[in-house]
């Protein structure tokens, strides 16, 4: 399948080699081809099984996990995260919340899972879980709560982190995602300081990456952004990643989630 898609991209691009306008058309055509059949569905099915399966030292499922809308309520939870959780006293995104549930309900080690490389061990379970949980909010509009003081504080810190310039190239998130209509190479860049619209930016992740054949969670997406910014390594489910999620998610209020989307 990946080979077929790569061939399609080549065809689309070479047909478009005459100029910029047609190159953009070629990319649009390629994306339309991708949209027909998203392998993220395989991850969704796996995630639903993992949610219901008894696992871990406590031999329990995640069905009593509270994602913010009450124990076991999955529909609509994704478009309201990150949010404040009274039991942990923290603002949590989906993945940091799943770590809490995997630890308290199933007896798995959150610290160990956070230290596991993407796609390996329980991180592979995470891919399925985020695919299914986000899919249960597909078509719903982003509506992150800001009622709690801690949610508003995380928004403010997320904004500061978004504009924080550092590293050998002086980049910040805003260097690439702070203006309309910009792109790196041929890749369009959403302006995440504003609401980029339905299915774009925050509203498009997690996503299936055709180029790597993997399901990328929001944590993984942010991790790779920081790698490309030449920053040091952001801890999995660390507060900077959660704060950025609050900032981008609140900015995107009202945008329709298409997660898990499909990306080249």
């Amino acid at each position, binding site marked *: 399948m990946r080979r077929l898609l790569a061939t399609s991209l080549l065809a689309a*691009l070479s047909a*478009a*080699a005459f*100029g*910029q306008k047609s190159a953009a058309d070629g990319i649009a055509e390629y994306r339309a081809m991708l949209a027909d059949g998203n392998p993220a569905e395989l991850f969704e099915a796996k995630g639903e099984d993992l949610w219901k399966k008894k696992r871990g030292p406590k031999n329990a499922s995640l069905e009593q996990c509270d994602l913010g809308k009450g124990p076991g309520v999955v529909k609509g939870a994704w478009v309201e995260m990150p949010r404040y959780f009274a*039991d*942990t*006293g*923290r603002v949590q995104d989906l993945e*940091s919340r799943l*770590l*809490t549930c995997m*630890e*308290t309900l199933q007896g798995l080690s*959150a*610290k160990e899972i*956070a230290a596991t490389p993407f796609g390996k061990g329980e991180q592979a379970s995470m891919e399925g879980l985020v695919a299914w949980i986000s899919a249960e909010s597909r078509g719903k509009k982003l509506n992150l709560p800001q009622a709690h*003081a*801690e949610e508003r*504080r995380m928004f*403010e*810190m997320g*904004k*500061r*982190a978004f*504009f*924080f*310039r*550092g*590293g*050998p*190239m*002086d980049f*910040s998130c*805003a*260097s690439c995602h*702070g203006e309309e*209509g*910009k*792109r*790196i*190479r*041929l890749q369009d*860049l959403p302006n995440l300081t504003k609401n980029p619209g339905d299915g774009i930016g925050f509203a498009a992740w997690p996503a299936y990456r055709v180029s790597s054949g993997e399901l990328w969670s929001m944590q993984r997406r942010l991790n790779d952004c920081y*790698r*490309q910014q*030449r*920053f*040091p*390594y*952001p*801890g*999995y*489910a*660390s*507060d*900077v*990643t*959660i*704060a950025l999620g609050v900032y981008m998610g609140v900015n995107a209020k009202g945008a329709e989630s298409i997660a898990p989307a499909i990306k080249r």
Partner: protein
Amino acid sequence: MKKTLLIGAGLASAALLAGCANAPSPAELDQQTLAMLKASFRDQGIAKVDRLEQDLGQKACSSDKPPAESVAKQIEAEALASIKWPEGGRYIGDWREGEKLAQNGRGMTWTDASAEAKANGANCYNCHQIDKKEISYGTIGPSLWNYGKTRGVKDVADPATAAIVQYTWGKMWNSKAYAACSNMPRFGHAKLLNEDQLRHVMALLLDPKSPVNQ
């Protein structure tokens, strides 16, 4: 407090929330953000946490608002003073090597083995249009198509072109000399490229024989 708080340890939220009903001030939020960043990042390969330490320019340009004019002027003056001009006034290398560097987007990430300049690409096409034949280019920076030609560079050795040749070197060595909060990396100043590599990119932009100026 549960064990799960260990994840992302360092956030002082519990202490902050305990005694304070009012929202933190902007200055407090600045401090809390720095503490959050320090607690969230770790060393990985060549990318160490000291990369979070900001100099004056990085700090002053870390906001949705530009710095005060006086601060911007100070950043630009310090950047201008930091520029190292090429040995023996040799500004121009080989545009073919420059094109290879312009196409190369590698370097300085935590998955790269070496932080030496020779291991790095120049990343030019990520943000600029340069050669019109290349359709895969970025738009974060301005188009550099016909860079030398539109600036009247017919012979790089002609003293009449000295001003634009020097400006181009200075812009690549430390872009902040000419715009305090420029998005462009400081290729010479930050040791992202060595002098020979810079000469090659100079040639790509300025040599009348370079495809950029056809």
